């Protein structure tokens, strides 16, 4: 019998390979799409000073007079060596995005640290007391909060807690030299909004995943053997529901990194989402590319981790025949 490579390692290796390929494809799509958009960095920046002469001078300076695929290959070559290049404004892309990425990661980690355990617990509670008041209440309220657009949730939260009750600041703008306490205090409202937005998705999926396992015969068997319902849910059903739960958690974590631009705008939180919007508006291609890579990498990375968790939690996948 030949020694088989470890299933997790081989899967991780192939997934990372595919992930890198996806990143290249994503970068190609975005680069070409931005090139086909009307307008250019030069006309966006020069605004009402944009004479044809000024535009061509700036385009020559930035190398924008070359065809887009030539520029793409040059960018790809540099990016492959880890050099994200210079923004069209002349600053290194990493210096521009770095501090914002840090802010995004801080907001995402704090939200995730609260949201993940909370939503899984609530999902289990719903599954355990299925059809009872607590289940109906949580299902309805999460359904409501998932149906309302996030900017509306943000404005309601802001109106009630910042404008009317004046409990928290309306601006989450954290800055260098601010104490940790004040930073956290300022981040309360965006965190609360994000919680309301992502909790629903995770609670409902946890509940659904557990309930689908609860319908299997072995759970019936456990019940017949006299196991208490709580033990059935946590010991028998939950371990087999970890795979689907991990997937939905991964999706929401990736969203926390790439999709919170609306929250960033409303609460004036200097995150990476705003950086990308700003860059798209000005056609600052190197910055757009870097943001796109970060977002794509977040999705690929979190999904990879979710798959690894599914495999580890499932002996059938861990020891394939």
């Amino acid at each position, binding site marked *: 019998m030949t020694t088989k490579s470890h299933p997790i390692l081989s899967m991780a290796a192939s997934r990372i390979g595919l992930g890198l390929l996806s990143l290249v494809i994503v970068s190609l799509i975005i680069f070409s799409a931005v090139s086909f*958009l*009307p*307008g250019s960095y*030069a*006309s966006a*920046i*020069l*605004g*009402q*000073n944009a*004479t*044809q*002469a*000024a535009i061509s*001078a*700036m385009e*020559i*300076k930035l190398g924008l007079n070359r065809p887009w695929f030539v520029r793409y290959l040059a960018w790809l070559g540099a990016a492959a060596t880890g050099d994200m290049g210079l*923004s*069209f*404004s*002349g*600053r290194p892309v990493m210096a*521009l995005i770095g*501090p914002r990425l840090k802010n995004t990661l801080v907001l995402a980690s704090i939200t995730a640290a609260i949201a993940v355990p909370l939503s899984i617990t609530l999902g289990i509670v719903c599954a355990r007391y299925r059809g009872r008041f607590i289940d109906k209440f949580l299902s309805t309220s999460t359904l409501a909060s998932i149906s309302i657009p996030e900017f509306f949730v943000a*404005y309601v939260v*802001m109106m009630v807690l*910042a*404008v009317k009750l*004046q409990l928290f*600041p*309306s*601006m989450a*703008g954290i*800055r*260098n030299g601010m104490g940790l306490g004040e930073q956290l205090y300022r981040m309360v409202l965006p965190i609360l909004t994000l919680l309301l937005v992502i909790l629903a998705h995770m609670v409902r999926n946890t509940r659904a995943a557990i309930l689908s396992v609860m319908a299997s015969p072995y759970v019936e068997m456990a019940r017949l053997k006299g196991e208490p319902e709580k033990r059935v849910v946590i010991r028998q059903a939950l371990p087999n529901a970890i795979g689907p739960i991990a997937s939905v958690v991964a999706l929401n974590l990736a969203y926390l990194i790439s999709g919170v631009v609306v929250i960033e*705008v*409303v*609460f*004036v939180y*200097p995150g990476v989402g*705003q*950086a990308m919007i*700003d*860059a798209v*508006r*000005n056609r*600052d291609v190197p*910055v757009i590319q870097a943001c796109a890579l970060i977002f794509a990498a977040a999705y690929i990375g979190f999904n990879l981790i979710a798959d690894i968790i599914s495999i580890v939690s499932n002996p059938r996948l861990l020891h394939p025949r």
Partner: protein
Amino acid sequence: MERVNIAGGEHPTASAGMTPTRRRFLVGASVVAGMVALPGLSWAQDKPRQGGKLRYGMNDGSQQDTLDPASWATVMTGFAFNGSLCNNLVELLPDGSLAGDLAESWAGEEGATRWTFILRKGVKFHDGRPLTPEDVRQSLLHHMGEGSTSGALAIVKQIKQIDKQGDEKVIFTLAEGNADFPSLMSDYHLSIFPAKEGGGIDWQSGIGTGAFKLESFEPGIAVRLKRNPDYHKPGLPHFDEVEVVNISDATARLNALMTGEVDVIEDLDIRNVALVERNPRLKIVRTPSLRHLTFDMNCSVAPYDNPAVRKALKLAIDRDDIIAKVFLGEAKKGNDNPAASIMPFYAETPPQHAYDPDAAKAILKEAGLDGVTVDLSVAETAFPGAVDAAVLFKEHAAKAGITVNIVQEADDGYWDNVWLKKPFNASDWYGRVTLDWLLATSYTSDAPWNNTGFKKPGFDALVKSARAEMDQAKRAKTYAEAQQMLHDEGGVITVAFVSWRLAMTTDIGHAALGGILPADNHRGAERWWRTDA
């Protein structure tokens, strides 16, 4: 040698708010803004107080913003860098007139082709270096030369040579005469930075001569500034600290003001005016600006090449209706003259074009036309409310037998694909400091942004002859003639002029604001004060 326009002596803004005329003006301005001092509360704006902090919420900061003056394009950079960190040779006073800033005086000679600026003595950069003619020369050269991408390129292009004389004189030689040259030196890109050894300027460190020193700069997020105790204008600035924060979302900006996170916000949404006016802690400050919103007809394309069609369309639009319904009264009626009333050499262009569908119909009939059909290209980005204004225009014009087909264009790329290209389009003009600059960039035959395709040799000749004219009365007459020509024959339908609309707490004191540039001609940080300091 003819000498003109010598400013000198004490700096005028230092005494702002002290002179009786200005105080009288203030009272008028505060009534206009709907602010009446509460009984028992002395809303003392007349005496500036020292100290405190100004927190300003901007709407257009960008992560592309840099300290390089050639790149400045946003109000955030204009206010924080040009108006607070730096000074120009000259300064635009709130009333629109020109005063010396780093230059104490200036004089033009040889048909306005040679301009000598005498620098103010004792001006120091933030690091203690004294201001020298070389700093001025390098600061201007920074925008010139092959491959320059500066926003001020059009201005500096006319400079042929810059010479220094002694340690206080800078002499500019122009390619052709321009009586407006000193005014153009107020352009916000032309801030004076310290020269580097071996040429160039040191803009990277953010060291200028301005009222505030740079503490920190996070592009697109915030700029923090500290008072410059050695500022060359006596008694200024009033604030100890200034913080300029970028809040791009209009609701978030308003909330930041309502919750006291900032003291002033830029560009209050017209739909929120009533909300702010109801709040006794807040006030709205409206300042007439150069900005105007237009529907531009290309005079060299049919049917707009027919003067009767142009005239009829100008009479077939009910500006009052559009201002009431689209701008909620927050705009001033235009009269098909792109010059703003706050500009030097602005002239009334009678008659005021009013809505008169019968007259429009009659004009068309006289030209042998039985009704006319036009395609109007609009998008929300053309100017705020452009689509709604076009819909109203369609209704107004229908009564004159004119069919206006509204072509809704895409927002993205509007300025690249529609503006200057489609024969009848909506446009948002931020205006220019001088009439010559406005006309020469947008209305003469060879103007780069001639959106109305207006090509009239007689008009070009008027603009050219006024440019180098040093006799103010003659100049005013020529400009009046040119403006009347645009009103009568031009392709621009000036729908409305809009004001800068700031909302601020009543704790911020100020004199009348300048409106040529936003935020008190960018210099609010040194002109305003806290009444609660």
